[in-house]
């Protein structure tokens, strides 16, 4: 019944347009997380716990929104909690010498545990989340208007954030320092800077953005909360950073590509194309693997040197 109604709703829209609308809609949360992870990895720290930061962000945003009625407070809460989890990762990795991948997984479990502990009471609560805001004029451009200019405010914010992070990384002294910390920390130390401090900031910022990504998912897209609702989006973001060659704008494209793959399944179903839902669900992951295969040689050459321990593939005969 629901499907039939949706079919009439989309009747006038081309498949490609609906998929692109869905791409931006479901790609935005991944984009936030990937952008954050780009900053973190550029400084030489990989945070597989991005999944946990997103989850914590999604739950905090939902809870705060439910309690205050204002989703913007939710976003603030999500940013704070996501950032705090990431700082814990940074502390253990930088100050305590924990293995980055293992510790990231623990962060993921911590996010899962905390959100199930504190989120249980919000599972059936309803909230007054973000609403799409059609930008006057621009949103009436055929196709493009729907794809780009009829979204929630967090999506618009992300449009600005991509170029902003690019500017920060490549056109500011601070960006030089951050990338330097990820390439050769001893060089920075020799100039009297503290690469550790730079890494703390970068990892914290990364978690903060992942948290906002989670907020976008729970308070703007799904408008609901359930246990483990991010379902691997954080892991996807980590993979995305690699195939985006640690470039913020490529990460944006990658996230939307991924969003498109996520959106394709429901759109096909709506159009009564008989494909098993789970086959379509696997598509984004297969696609990511395929892209990694195609870009393998190039992207691994560009990995920040500081990540070498995690990414260096010894040559194989």
């Amino acid at each position, binding site marked *: 019944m629901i499907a039939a109604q949706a079919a009439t709703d989309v009747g006038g829209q081309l498949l490609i347009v609906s998929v692109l609308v869905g791409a931006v809609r479901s790609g935005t949360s991944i984009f936030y997380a990937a952008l954050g992870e780009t900053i973190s990895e550029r400084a030489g720290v990989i945070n597989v716990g991005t999944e946990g930061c997103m989850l914590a962000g999604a739950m905090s945003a939902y809870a705060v929104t439910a309690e205050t009625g204002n989703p913007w407070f939710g976003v603030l809460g999500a940013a704070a909690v996501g950032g705090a989890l990431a700082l814990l990762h940074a502390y253990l990795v930088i100050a305590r010498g924990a293995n980055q991948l293992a510790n990231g997984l623990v962060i993921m479990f911590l996010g899962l545990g905390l959100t199930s502990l504190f989120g249980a009471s919000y599972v059936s609560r309803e909230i007054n989340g973000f609403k799409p805001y059609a930008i006057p004029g621009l949103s009436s451009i055929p196709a493009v208007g729907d794809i780009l200019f009829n979204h929630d405010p967090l999506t618009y914010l992300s449009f600005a954030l991509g170029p902003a992070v690019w500017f920060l990384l490549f*056109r*500011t*002294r*601070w*960006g*030089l*320092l951050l*990338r*330097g910390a990820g*390439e*050769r920390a*001893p*060089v*920075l130390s*020799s*100039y*009297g800077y503290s690469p550790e401090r730079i890494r703390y900031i970068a990892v914290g910022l990364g978690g903060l953005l992942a948290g906002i990504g989670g907020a976008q998912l729970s308070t703007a897209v799904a408008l609901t909360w359930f246990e483990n609702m991010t379902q691997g989006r954080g892991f996807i973001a980590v993979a995305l950073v690699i195939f985006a060659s640690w470039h913020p704008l490529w990460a944006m494209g990658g996230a939307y590509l991924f969003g498109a793959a996520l959106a394709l399944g429901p759109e096909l179903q709506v159009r009564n194309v008989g494909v098993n839902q789970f086959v379509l669900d696997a598509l984004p992951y297969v696609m990511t693997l395929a892209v990694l295969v195609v870009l393998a040689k190039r992207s691994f050459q*560009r990995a*920040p*040197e500081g990540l070498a321990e995690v990414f260096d593939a010894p040559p194989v*005969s």
Partner: protein
Amino acid sequence: MSIATLEPSADRTKQSPSIIEVRGLTKRFGDLVATGDVDFDVRSGEVHSLLGENGAGKSTLMKLLYGVYQPDAGEILVDGVVHRLDSPADARALGIGMVFQDLRLIPAFTVAENIALSLPGGGFRYRRQAVERQILDAGAELGFSVDPKALVRHLSIGERQRVEILKVLMSGARLVILDEPTSVLAPQEVDGLFTAIRSLRAKGLAVVIITHKLHETRAIADRLSILRAGRMVGSGIDPTTVDDRALISAMVGREVPPLPVERSDPPADRPAALRVTGVHVRGDGGNTALHDIHLEVKAGEVMGVAGVAGSGQRELYEAVLGLRPLHTGDIHIAAVEMAKSDPGAALALGAVGIPEDPISDAVVPGLDVTEHLALSNLSSLRKGLGIDWARARELVAELDRQIGLRMVAHDRTVADLSGGNVQRVMLTRAFGVDCTLLVAAYPSRGLDVATTRRTQELLLAQREAGAGVLFISEDLDELMELSDQIAVLHNGHLAGVVTPGEVDRYAIGQLMLGGSE
């Protein structure tokens, strides 16, 4: 001539004030006295050469001056005032700059980005164009040509060195310390560096150059000081007042045993241990790293390989040992063609390598000395599914006696050893194998004089035993002493093959830089 006759110089810089002076400087690491009670001074407008063997304490002394280490005793005076240098930042603030041997640049950054990082202050934005202009201006003033937009990873070692010097000067240094700057340069590039150093001197700056090469000291230094085993055995000497023999015995403290003079001439009819025919090889970046190389090393012959750093030596080493695929051409070891590039195939044909960079290419973290040596002999140590470790230990003990390079205790983890001790393990492993072809890349790097001598003897012993030896080195003197012939690489091309007795070092240098003989 004895050390006592090394008198402080009375040269023209006598009147200039000391920019830096140290008194009684002592630094210990555990029981080891790296520098003991050292007195030393540098004046503005002079080039001061600091001589000494590897491990004599030269780098430690310079790191004390640069604030990397803090002394256990003694004091440092800058412009006549006692200062505590708690960090390099303190040293830089006083106008002391250092160019390290392992250049402190980020390869993934451009020249401008690297220099922008090093400049103090500068606000929030990275003003690319402004920094690029500053670099061009500073370069022009010193006669350096540097492209600020170039990625450092694309620059040659010599170019990187110039960037490093520029970087130090642009952050306001009045005293520039250069740590073995010539070890990676061709003779003509050294001339370029010295021209630059002279122009620094002309501007009234002070330069300290760390080296162990006497002819360079003579070419550039106004005064020299000599460290041996952490002690200053001669300070502030006028180079014109001492001869080389006195300097060498001051550095070494004993006579260096001479190499055996009589060597059998390689008979012309010996078979080729290595034949390289029309080989092209791609570098890491996909560029052509070796162009159409034809080379033959006979059994019982030492073929030296000379070239500016990065001229294709590494690629030649790897191609010959089956570590790097050939683009075209073929390689025969002991008259058998290596069917495909496979290190196992090269080993099976009797080719053994001494790697350029053992830490990254040969040392396995967590494995001890015995395990490292067993690695080259696994098939004969097999016992069922396992390995006969008891026999491995016996064999290694026997080998250590035979080779005589005095490795550390055989149960020590190699990854924890110093560079010199790692190299002893690598050399013992390589010389312990009966081979038809020995490919040695910089075998004496990081070794003291006596061990270097022993290594050279072992190389020649392999030659006497009938192996072909391909001997890659950056030290022209060593090459000319040991090689029957020297192949000179320039930019991936074989620029020529010369016989040491027939040409001088400048002729080889000319080939290294792409000139004709």
